[in-house]
């Protein structure tokens, strides 16, 4: 075991899979020689060569198309989109092609591309370096969508994603690349570096965390919190600060969703608060509400609450007002508790 940040863990996941399988390669803007603007692919160019840590032109649509073709021809490309905000020029190739190749060809063709994209705000990135577009991809059948919340999961899930024969959209909450984040101005009595955090303990070799399985991070009796990515830690802080007995579930994979783990918990607590950083309307929270009320209607003691980013672009100066902070989470938990 070693101490790793999320960046190191992701790097290690790529390194491990590249070492085991010559068909695994990484590609994207600045990922080759330089090792990526967030340093996630650092050293891979030097270790595996220019063709396996491939710098590309700045054309997300071209990158994803090339990766699809490579995947069809036996490679396992791991694409980095420099910021999730810039995934849209490749949207058609993802939605119309990557997601549907296998189905439309009757199972003849498929392309096991993994697309990594740093997402989320809290780094003063303004509206074009802060977005969380995960919800959109969960509406596209044929894709799997993943977002880890810590180094251990990040590595294990990324290895699973790369080895998976279906395309995976792998969002990396960049706010917690270098350490857990409990919210602005929060003095939670918890680890503030990955090296002090239990999930910063990461095996150096190959291991997997399965896709499609949520993690119950904290058991509780009064309310179930469903969240993922950065917000897992903010939720943890909110729980600690409020003293509420909340069950905290880190979804890890959004699609396929681990509805069993979710439903078991909500049936127990009778209350549910869903948290994400993405804008509210038609975000993944909506799907979670829909699923939870379908599965647990008769157990619900209060309306399911959503705590999300507002339906505005992510504003540079009001980052912390936009960000779903612990106070909004605590209020939501309280509302559900007071409801019955």
């Amino acid at each position, binding site marked *: 075991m070693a101490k790793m940040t999320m960046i190191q863990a992701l790097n290690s996941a790529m390194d491990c899979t590249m070492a085991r399988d010559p068909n695994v390669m990484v590609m994207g803007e600045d990922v080759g020689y330089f090792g990526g603007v967030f340093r996630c692919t650092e050293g891979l160019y030097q270790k595996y060569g220019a063709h396996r840590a491939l710098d590309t032109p700045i054309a997300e649509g071209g990158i994803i198309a090339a990766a699809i073709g490579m995947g069809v021809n*036996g490679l396992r490309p791991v694409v980095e989109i420099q910021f999730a905000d810039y995934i849209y020029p490749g949207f058609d190739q993802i939605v119309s092609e990557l997601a549907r190749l296998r189905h439309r060809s009757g199972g003849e063709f498929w392309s096991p591309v993994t697309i990594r994209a740093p997402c989320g705000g809290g780094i003063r990135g303004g509206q074009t370096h802060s977005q969380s577009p995960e919800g959109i991809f969960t509406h596209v059948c044929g894709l799997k969508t993943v977002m880890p919340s810590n180094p251990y999961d990040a590595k294990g899930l990324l290895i699973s994603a790369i080895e998976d024969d279906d395309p995976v959209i792998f969002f990396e909450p960049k706010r917690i690349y270098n350490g857990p984040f409990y919210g602005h101005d929060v003095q939670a009595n918890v680890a503030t570096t990955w090296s002090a955090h239990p999930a910063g303990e990461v095996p150096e070799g190959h291991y997997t965390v399965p896709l499609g399985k949520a993690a119950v991070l904290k058991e509780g009796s009064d309310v179930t919190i469903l969240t993922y990515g950065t917000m897992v830690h903010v939720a943890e802080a909110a729980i600690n600060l409020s003293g509420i007995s909340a069950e905290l579930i880190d979804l890890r994979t959004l699609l396929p969703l681990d509805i069993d783990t979710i439903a078991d918990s909500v049936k127990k607590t009778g209350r549910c608060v869903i948290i994400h950083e993405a804008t509210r309307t038609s975000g993944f929270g909506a799907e979670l509400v829909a699923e939870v009320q379908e599965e647990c209607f008769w157990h619900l003691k209060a309306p399911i609450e959503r705590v999300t980013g507002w339906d505005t672009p992510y504003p540079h100066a009001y980052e912390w007002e936009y960000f779903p902070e612990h106070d909004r989470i605590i209020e939501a938990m309280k509302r559900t508790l007071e409801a019955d």
Partner: protein
Amino acid sequence: MALSQKPAGHFAGDVEDHADTQSGLPVNKLYVPEASSRPGQNPDFSDLEIPPAGTTPKPQTDTHALDMQSLAYGLVRVLDDEGNALGEWNPNLSAEQMRQGLRHMMHVRAYDDRMFRMQRQGKLSFYMKCTGEEAIAVAQAMALEKGDMLFPTYRQQGLLFVRERPVLDMMCQCLSNSKDNLKGRQLPVLYSWKENNFFTISGNLATQFSQAVGWAMASAYKGEDHIASAWVGDGSTAEADVYHALLFASTYRAPVILNVVNNQWAISTPQSFASAGTTFAARGLGFNIPSIRVDGNDFLAVYAAAEWAAKRAREGHGATFIELFTYRSEGHSTSDNPEGYRAKNEAQAWPLGDPVERLKQHLIRLGEWSEEQHEALAEELKQSILQTWKEAITYGTLEEGPHWPVSTMFEDVYKEIPAHLRKQRQKMGV
């Protein structure tokens, strides 16, 4: 014409704007391209510069793009109007090879005719012919190797004939029946045939052009010798994927052939909305890719250009961009009626003739073929297609079945069916 020189000046289709004057208001100054003809007009292709057959020099396969730029503005032609094969681009095929090519083209045409009529009789939901463009797919497929990967559009059914896809299987795909290898999931003509390296055709235009480059990059990555070839229509060249294909192919010197099938029309939209007033081939030069404009109705010219490009790619010199100059002589699809947007007789006015007729004429001139043989072959193909059709419908039709079990629609969304899809399948009760 010297290889490194290109003709200066304007091209056919480069028409002048006639701004209308509305008194008072400022006059609209937006230029909008015009069509080769519109209903009621007299189609006139006399402006087209068509160089004589056999006059274009053939460069070495390692020639730099700019040292052969005249080829992007000219037109490689081998067969002249009398059926002679002329010049450096003559691929010198054996009579047997040419008869094979002729047979494939006639086979495609017989197939198209039957399927079109079956759509009109309500047996198929949709169909698309490639009439007049048969040489493009057939000649190139013959020039490639079996291990080369094909990324076609919906108008290169000829590739399948050359690679000997059973016609029965093609028909069953079009019928979405119980023997359809695509399990009833795709519109007719959007074939897929993994076994012989024919990629699943997308309904989305141009998306596969850039995927083909990725495929070719992987071939180079793995140190293999297989190349990829991709096709796109003139109208579809406007899509971003074509730009990405050109850029990535050039950047990584991918072993790929990038073909533009310029059949003059994109549904109702003339090529002038996509050509930027120059040749399509010219676009490749801006990416440093050797670019060749070819008479797409000349079987021998298409073969020779493909052979050249394949050799170039296999030698490691990278991509070639080929514009195949042809004409879509029928409607866009069974949903289309071209009389709504172009002169009725435009197809007849098209000066480059018909690929089947031209190759036939050449073979007859060589004494290797005759009108009688031709007619007999046409009849034979027609009958065999008809027989196959009769067999095909025994496996079902779209409207009447049988199809694949309906539960199969939940398969192949993912490699394994995830729980939520299993639940949905259950809900459906199948």
